[in-house]
């Protein structure tokens, strides 16, 4: 069965252990800022998994936008709203138990499904090592603009012809982001209290 450790598996186990560990820590920790920190660690190790799966463009994207942008936003949110509470926002014990039981059941179900289906089983070691290292940025860039590089050797003709690039969704997302930008700014804007609106006593 192959000679010696197959390194990608070792790193996969390492990163997934980190990701799941910190994800569980997020669920169980009570202090909001600690939750945010564990989430950062969990998402960073997921980015590691992306690198492992050969998608370093998406990994770098995750690090930059998701962890660098979204979570900083979240931490700003935590800072703006963190306040001394009279009683800790503790969910009563009962709900915890129900939650955990359903959670474990769901995980077991998904794992059973994952490991049973034959198509998703790992390929042989020789085959894995034969896969060539290819640049990942250029195909994604081209796919976003006008060509589907990866479908070049698609066997049947119709499929290859029919493959359209991701230009349209790319434009839609950019417009969508603009709309969200304005919407969020409008929602959280400075409340200008007009002189007439007198708050009742």
């Amino acid at each position, binding site marked *: 069965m192959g000679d010696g450790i197959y390194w990608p598996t070792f790193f996969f186990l390492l990163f997934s252990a980190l990701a799941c560990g910190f994800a569980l820590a997020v669920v169980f920790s009570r202090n909001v800022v600690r939750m945010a920190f564990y989430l950062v660690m969990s998402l960073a190790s997921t980015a590691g998994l992306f690198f492992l799966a050969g998608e370093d463009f998406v990994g770098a994207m995750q690090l930059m936008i998701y962890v660098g942008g979204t979570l*900083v936003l979240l931490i700003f949110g935590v800072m703006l709203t963190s306040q001394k509470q009279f009683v800790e926002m503790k969910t009563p014990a009962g709900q915890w138990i129900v939650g955990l039981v359903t959670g474990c059941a769901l995980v077991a179900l998904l794992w059973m499904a994952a490991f049973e289906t034959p198509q998703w089983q790992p390929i042989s070691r020789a085959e894995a090592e034969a896969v060539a290292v290819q640049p990942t940025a250029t195909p994604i860039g081209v796919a976003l603009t006008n060509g589907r590089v990866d479908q070049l050797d698609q066997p049947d003709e119709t499929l290859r012809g029919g493959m359209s690039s991701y230009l349209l969704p790319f434009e839609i997302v950019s417009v969508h982001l603009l709309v969200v930008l304005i919407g969020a700014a409008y929602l959280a804007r400075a409340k200008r209290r007009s002189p007439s609106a007198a708050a009742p006593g």
Partner: protein
Amino acid sequence: MAEFLANYLPAWLAYMVAGAIHVGLIINLVAVGALVFIWLERKISGRIQDRLGPTRVGGKFGWLQTLADGLKLLTKEDLVPGGADKMLFRIAPYVSFCASIAAFLAIPFAGGDYPFIVQHVNTGVFFVLAVLGLEVFGVILAGYASASKWSLFGAMREAAQVVSYEVPLGLCAVVPVMLAGSLDLVVIGDVQQGWFTNWLIFHDPATFLIFWVYFTCATASVNRAPFDLAEAESELVAGFHTEYSGLRWSFFFMAEYGSMFSVSLLASILFLGGWNGPLPITEWLGLTAANGDIAWYIGQVLGVINVIGKAVAGVCVMMWIRWTLPRLRIDQVMATCLKYCTPLAAAFFLGAVAWQWSLPGRTFFGLLESPAELQSVSEGWSDATAAATDEDEPEASEDQTVSSEPSRKVAAAKLTGAAALQIASTNLQGGK
């Protein structure tokens, strides 16, 4: 490196040792870099302020001063403030330190077929910018965890500043990527071979200007010089690391010097030709791969010295600015970012695109000479495809000896890239 060792050691040990050597080199680079910079900063600030700086500590120019600092920091007591969130307080410096060290993973020190790089990530620029963004977490946690109003002020200021300066920084970094045609730092470095006229900074006026915008944003994103709001001692006592002392404080400082070094390394590779010196000395002395490994190795070492030299020059300029200019106010810092840096970066980016569109592949100094030689760079993809396609089949059937691995990989890389570009051009013609 790992393949080279695989001939002598069992495979997994080879990877382990190669990894250890890489990490060792990087940690040394940053640690020694920090040591040198602390001493350099004292000397430069001394010279600027018409005094000598350390002279007597260990030897002639007081070069042991940093060691003395280090010992002092080691012996200082690491105290944790009472109300602090213990766990986050302890972890914060290490998060910020790891973030600034991780940036060195993808930075090459010498190019060519076997680049001197820890991990040849082909989205190098993107990876470095992403990791630099993570350093802000260390600061936020430090600010929040030390439970004092002043550190919270400092942390929030720094977070706002670094996050908002990532936008113009990214915009400026995209121009060299566009000119060199790839996110891979090694390719960007290799495009700038030969005379200094090939440097991307002289590629066209827009890129020249965007270099200065890049340098300002870089100084701001590592919190130096006029933008060092986070540890503005006149207002916030010492900003987010008020409560830190001893070793933890030194980690923050190593992180700051590390990210300053990595940002100037990036500047030197993206704009100032990286390992290609102003004059093509390696070609003149014949130190290229053509005549033997030893010559090639010396050529590479010259390249490494070149890169680090330029980076140290960049850091010296940052120090020089720091000791002359007063500090900006937080809203002025934000205003410069949003009102000046981002529009300027966008404008120069459009300028570079216009230049690239009208005179593809022509540099400012290359306007006079015939464009042939430069043309090859962009066309390199196509003829490589022709070469790769026919000689690829026989090669694939050879045995999977480890030694031939790199050349095949590079050819393959060219293949997919070239194929992609060809399709792009065909579609374009088809589309028009």
